[in-house]
């Protein structure tokens, strides 16, 4: 064979090998969440299969007293953690949403390009700030501050957790919403102005409705981040195992219960099984969020096409 034939043959061999390896890596990376889901299912199902609790008890009952043994026989009602998670996330969205949306509107519709170039990196910088730092500042600055202004027994409270989470989800919602608003065609705005609308009317009637899909995606990603945050919340919520009844009282969430109790629970016991089931619940919820985002995107794509 002449050298060219050999080179071509080698190139073909390399091509096949590379395609094979690259595909393995791609599929392998995609399998990681399935592995995680599989392991969580394996461990989390013990609560129901091994210790014989019902799904209804786990999700709806408020009796939380799992026994830390492999024998079982305790109560695994996680409703207080679930409701704690939902209340803190809701509170965080409530605080953060007005600020995020107005920042996004200001960035895309009102600010000059110069100002936007200053604000945008500043906002994006905050996605990277470590959650324990948020937690630490919440613990040392926010809690004394709240205690100063409200009458509350400890300072550790749902309100503090909501505030810390609000700061954490702010950059996520803001960047996603601003991207969606910036993607609204300029001609639509010009048409609106041309019909005599003011800027506020253009924003409220044209830009926000057109960017709805992106704003929702941002909200859901923010919600996912708030739901999954463990340590920052654990540092300020007070971790009292009660139902979230007052904004000014401590409570617990799914993540804080896992973070604080998993280390001490006996491997293979009912307590650790219940905590694994809570982790499984978190996994399923974040999967649900991604699913919802895909549905929103597909719906807005179909609408755009017709």
């Amino acid at each position, binding site marked *: 064979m002449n050298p060219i034939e050999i080179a071509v043959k080698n190139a073909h061999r390399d091509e096949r090998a590379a395609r094979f390896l690259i*595909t393995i890596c791609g599929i392998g*990376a995609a399998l990681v969440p399935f592995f995680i889901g599989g392991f969580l299912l394996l461990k989390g199902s013990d609560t129901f299969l091994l210790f014989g609790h019902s799904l209804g008890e786990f999700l709806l009952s408020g009796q939380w007293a799992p026994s830390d043994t492999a024998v079982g026989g305790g109560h695994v009602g996680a409703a207080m953690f679930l409701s704690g998670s939902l209340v803190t996330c809701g509170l965080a969205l409530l605080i953060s949403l007005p600020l995020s949306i107005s920042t996004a509107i200001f960035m895309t519709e009102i600010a000059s390009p110069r100002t936007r170039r200053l604000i945008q990196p*500043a906002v994006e910088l905050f996605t990277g700030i470590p959650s*324990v730092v948020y*937690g*630490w*500042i919440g613990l040392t600055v926010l809690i004394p501050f709240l205690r100063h202004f409200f009458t509350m027994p400890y300072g550790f409270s749902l309100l503090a957790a909501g505030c810390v989470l609000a700061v954490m989800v702010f950059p996520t919602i803001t960047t996603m919403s601003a991207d969606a608003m910036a993607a609204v065609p300029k001609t639509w705005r010009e048409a609106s102005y041309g019909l005599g609308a003011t*800027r506020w009317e253009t924003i409220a009637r044209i830009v926000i409705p057109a960017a709805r899909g992106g704003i929702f995606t941002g909200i859901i990603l923010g919600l996912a981040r708030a739901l999954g945050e463990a340590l920052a919340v654990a540092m300020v919520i007070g971790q009292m195992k009660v139902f979230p009844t007052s904004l000014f009282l401590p409570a617990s969430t799914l993540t804080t219960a896992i973070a604080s109790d998993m280390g001490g629970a006996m491997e293979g016991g009912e307590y650790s099984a219940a905590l694994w089931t809570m982790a499984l619940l978190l996994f399923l919820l974040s999967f649900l969020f991604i699913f919802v985002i*895909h549905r929103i995107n597909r719906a807005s794509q179909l609408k755009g096409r017709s």
Partner: protein
Amino acid sequence: MSRIQHKKKVDKIMTALFFGGTAFAVILLVAFIGFVIVQGFGVMTPDMLSFSGSGLGNMLFNTLYLVFLALLFSMLTGVPAGIFLAEYAHQGKVTHWVRMAIETLASLPSIVVGLFGYLAFIVMTGSQWNLFAGSLAVSILTLPLVTSVTEDALRNLPSSYRQGSLGLGASHWQTIWRVLVPACFPRIMTGLIMAAGRGFGEAAALMFTAGMSTDINWNNWDITSASCPLNPFRPGETLALHIWSLRTEALHPNAAQLASVSSAILMVLVVSFSLAARYISWRLDKKMGGTNS
């Protein structure tokens, strides 16, 4: 006329509201960073940074070492996965499925990844808490970012690169390896720097994988020994985790100061990496824009 005036008034009020909201948020955030850094460096004493006892030097070293390992792992799988999505995958069910799986990975709570790491890398291998397991857990968290950055970088290259290489007779793989990947190397680097920023602050995923203790001896360079700094199979507490444990355990008399200093160091690391990534991509955009136009 009054209707128009009314509309103008509403417009002004709303503009003021949006401006006010933005100003409040941005000032709050900037004050936050400034506060953490100023407060931390204000209470810092030289012995806090030492590499022994209650000093933070060991934790800082653990953090850097763990992030380095994590980036190595997520580069080894994330970059090929990105190449797969951009170059080899066909538009279809499998690709859609792979993309969705990687997105799910990106939104997983880090504590869930930490629990998975604990089960898969600690319990099932029968080992003690170690840095290696911690870096694998962090690499799972940074994998989606590295993958999507690589894919975007490859997709955004001018198609003339690909056509030029293929036209000269190079195979698809030769084109990818010799032309496309080198051309988007700076973009991939930027992605890795961003991923490092995320890794520095990770704590929840490390609680049950890297462990909360550090026992290293800086004179021991036998890599198989448990007290050798470079041995990845030893427990290693990172700075972020140290802040958490200082708050719950309060082992040291000056726990609050140590946590403040740790926060400030982490903040400086994260902010400088983020600014570096931004600077590189800004330079790149300028350069690319310059040659194309």
